[in-house]
């Protein structure tokens, strides 16, 4: 009897070890592609060309020019997130309704653009918004003067909204779908009309989805440099463009790393705030 017990214990121990062994390749992956780059970033950010420790790169950021760019990035990302929310929530809500529950084709149509190359999609806007683009040609056809659409805040905002809208729809859609039909029936049973049902029951219950949707749109939007580069023109600066420039054009890895680190801190901060929001709702 004792012998079997011992061997059983031994067995479970070896299973434990095995499962740890399975994780090893992933740990190595994380080490190489997550932990190591962060350390490299920190090393560059806190040293100068001579390799001496310094805060100068971080301090340099607190210059009205760079703070202005940061502020502009946050403003654009916030606006994009807000627009995505007001466009995305109704879409998610409609798709989650009973009548559409079996019609996955609609949901599929929202996914399809995500499968196409992101650059191709963004370049397509050049041809639509350009001075000789589709929209201006339509204006000319009706005898209007062409207007500058491309290389404006509006164009960048449009690019952001267009690219990140699906990231707003899906988390909200999935949280709306999870709401128990009986809870909605109970609310109707207790006298709520459609508006009361929405604002007192459905909206509060979709808050966790909203929180993750906001994170998923805001964070990539604040860090983007390709959309602003293509639709905003070469002189358009968001924080992402500034970092890109420091690395690829100016060749100042130290300041670039400092900026990337600040960006990283901002993203972590947002994440903490949003996850706190969704957690509070779950309690």
């Amino acid at each position: 009897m004792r012998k079997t017990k011992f061997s059983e214990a031994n067995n479970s121990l070896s299973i434990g070890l095995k499962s740890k062994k399975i994780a090893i390749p992933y740990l190595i992956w994380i080490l190489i592609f997550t932990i190591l780059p962060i350390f490299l970033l920190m090393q560059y950010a806190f040293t100068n060309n001579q390799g001496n420790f310094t805060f100068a790169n971080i301090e340099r950021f607190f210059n009205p020019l760079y703070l202005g760019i940061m502020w502009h990035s946050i403003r654009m990302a916030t606006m994009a997130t807000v627009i995505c929310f007001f466009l995305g929530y109704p879409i998610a809500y409609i798709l989650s309704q009973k009548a559409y529950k079996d019609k996955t084709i609609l949901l599929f149509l929202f996914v399809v653009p995500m499968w196409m190359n992101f650059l191709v999609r963004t370049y397509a806007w050049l041809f639509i918004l350009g001075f000789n683009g589709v929209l201006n040609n339509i204006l000319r056809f009706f005898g209007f003067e062409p207007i500058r659409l491309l290389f404006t805040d509006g164009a960048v905002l449009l690019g952001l909204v267009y690219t990140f809208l699906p990231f707003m729809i899906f988390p909200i859609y999935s949280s709306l779908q999870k709401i128990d039909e009986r809870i909605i029936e109970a609310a109707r049973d207790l006298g709520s009309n459609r508006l009361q049902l929405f604002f007192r029951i459905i909206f509060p219950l979709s808050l966790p989805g909203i929180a993750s949707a906001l994170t998923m749109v805001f964070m990539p939007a604040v860090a983007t440099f390709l959309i602003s580069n293509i639709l905003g023109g070469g002189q358009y600066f968001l924080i992402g463009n500034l970092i890109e420039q420091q690395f690829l054009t100016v060749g100042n890895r130290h300041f670039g790393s400092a900026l990337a680190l600040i960006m990283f801190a901002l993203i972590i901060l947002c994440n903490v705030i949003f996850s706190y929001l969704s957690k509070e709702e779950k309690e």
Partner: protein
Amino acid sequence: MEFIELKNIEKNFYVNKQERQILKGINLSIKENEFLTLLGPSGSGKTTTLRIIGGFETASKGQVFFNGLDIGKTPPHKRAINTVFQNYALFPHMNVYDNVAYGLKIKKFSKSAIKDRVEKTLSLVNLSGFDKRSVKSLSGGQQQRIAIARALINEPKVLLLDEPLGALDLKLRKEMQIELKNMQKNLGITFIYVTHDQEEALTMSDQIAVMNDGEILQKGTSENIYNEPKNAFIASFIGTSNIITGTMERDRKVTFLKTDFECVDPMPGSVVQIVVRPEDIEIEQTPRDRNSLKGEVIEVIFFGVNYEMKVKTGDFIWKIHSTKSYERGQFVYLFMATEALHVMEMERSL
């Protein structure tokens, strides 16, 4: 005029693109302050019937009358009917107080009036002082009480209950049965109760409607349904029964197991089914001159209150409940009084 009346309610659903008839013409009338139970196995259509009364489903055909008015097109929030849902369906993002207060807040009651009524209702369900608790921290039984409180606070004319005690353990279920019945009596509210538990139905109801396969097979008081089941399905569904096939050539005389018995029923047909409740059979050591049958005891189980014995006569095995016990292998005589034999027409489907 009836308080609630269902007339020829039919309901068709599409299941896998095939139309299926869930309700096949339900006719039912319910009196004010009555405790009516829809009793039936799962899939019998009892929950669908309840949902049609509540307004969550619309009937494909037929009408629902409430105080003489057709309410077929009235949405749930405009019916003086509240529901206690099967899985309670409490609002997970609200605490106990807000859950119970919901209906009154919607109706724009004053804060102090709401506070008053919530307190009263919580004490009615024995959960005073639970106001600030999160509903997720409550046990199943407590959640059930909150669901009842949330419905009752609106002072509905009718309360619909969809298997409300299904998730509770046996002891709690028994307690809640008595509590619910008392509440119904004291508050003077009409209860329409759905269950598949025949014992629950028998203890609580004023009227029971037994449903199967989208139809109401029999409606009556508990005693009525138990003592005079209309067919073998009801007899076997309600309580344990001995159901045996026999023949009836004359009024008040039925023959089974090659023996003639006197009974109270007139002649319903030549081939019949006879239902005998296990507690209506007396076991004796000597035969009587009529309604007596010889058999061998093949099993004896002690149940606490009584014994369940199985006695074999020919090919048929009788179930008998008795306070006296006999030995296995012993030969005994079974006496069935004339009133104990319920003769029914043979059911084709059985």
